[in-house]
């Protein structure tokens, strides 16, 4: 592995962590959504700084080519992030639905009250 690719690995891992932390700091990302991204960034950093850990982990689980372990772990993490997003989306849709129903009923109630008032003041 060349020095350039060694540095590239470390820099990209640090970039991921920096972006996640910055988003968290500004309140643009909630902690529970950030967990997976933090985990991915930290794993990438460890593997980038100490490539030996990657080789060790690959041998431990019986993966022949260490890079394949990286691909597997990345896919798994992205999978869980996407699944969590879908699930959160479902919760949000449910809440939006309830709010929409409530707003329709409130609008109708206001109209009924206004009509009653008009009738009362008219007669």
């Amino acid at each position: 592995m060349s020095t350039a690719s060694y540095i590239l690995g470390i820099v990209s891992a640090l970039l991921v962590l920096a972006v996640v932390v910055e988003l968290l700091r500004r309140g643009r990302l909630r902690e529970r959504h950030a967990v997976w991204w933090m985990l991915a960034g930290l794993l990438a950093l460890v593997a980038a700084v100490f490539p030996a850990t990657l080789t060790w982990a690959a041998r431990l689980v019986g993966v022949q080519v260490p890079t394949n372990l990286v691909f597997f772990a990345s896919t798994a993490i992205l999978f869980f992030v996407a699944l969590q997003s879908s699930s959160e989306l479902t919760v949000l849709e449910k809440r939006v639905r309830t709010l929409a129903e409530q707003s329709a009923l409130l609008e109708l109630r206001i109209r009924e009250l206004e009509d009653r008032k008009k009738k009362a003041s008219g007669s």
Partner: protein
Amino acid sequence: MPLPSLSRTLVVMPAFNEADSVADVVREVVEAVPQAHVLVVDDGSRDDTTELARAAGASVARLPFNLGVGGAMRTGFRYAVSKGFDAVVQVDADGQHDPAEIATLVDGLAAADLVLGARFAGVGDYRTSGPRRWAMVVLSRVLSRLTRTRLTDTTSGFRASGPRAIRLFAEHYPAEYLGDTIETLVIASRSGLTISQVPVHMRVRSGGVPSHRPVKSAIYLARAGLALIFALTRPRSSHASEGVR
């Protein structure tokens, strides 16, 4: 169970871009059951559905965007709870349900919590064929066993709900496609409600054509099956536990 009177009955009509037919259907309902209150739930229409329904004499709740029949119906059930109605009858805004039979459905509530208007039970000449028909037959078999009563038309949208069903559905009324017909039966029977059916006439829709194309039928069959499987495997705690008294 005491017989709910028609004056304590709310007719809920979900309507999505039904400007062509909604006013006529509202007038027909008012004519057929003058004592009942009519609520049109405008499901995010972009035409004049709201104005026309209002002019025809219905109360109209307008949803800010399209939620599907399930969302529109739950809105209706919530309205019924807040106003204390004893019966809710769902009627389609496209005119395929005959308002003259609303009273028949409400009569059925004397002996059950949920009454379905069944299209194949010997009255009228409503027919369907091919995979869609098989799907309906299978659904009817499964749901009949589950609800311990003979149901021949489980996807009928023409139905009446009594006080217990109203309270349940104001909380739990699925929004998914076909959930409003199939899953509601599962929810109702798991919550201990009694279900029955009465035969009704069905008229040709005045707007829109029912689909009979094979691909569409196959998709319908798959979605109906999925809806049923998910309804049956859903954790009970989500609705059955907060029992309906």
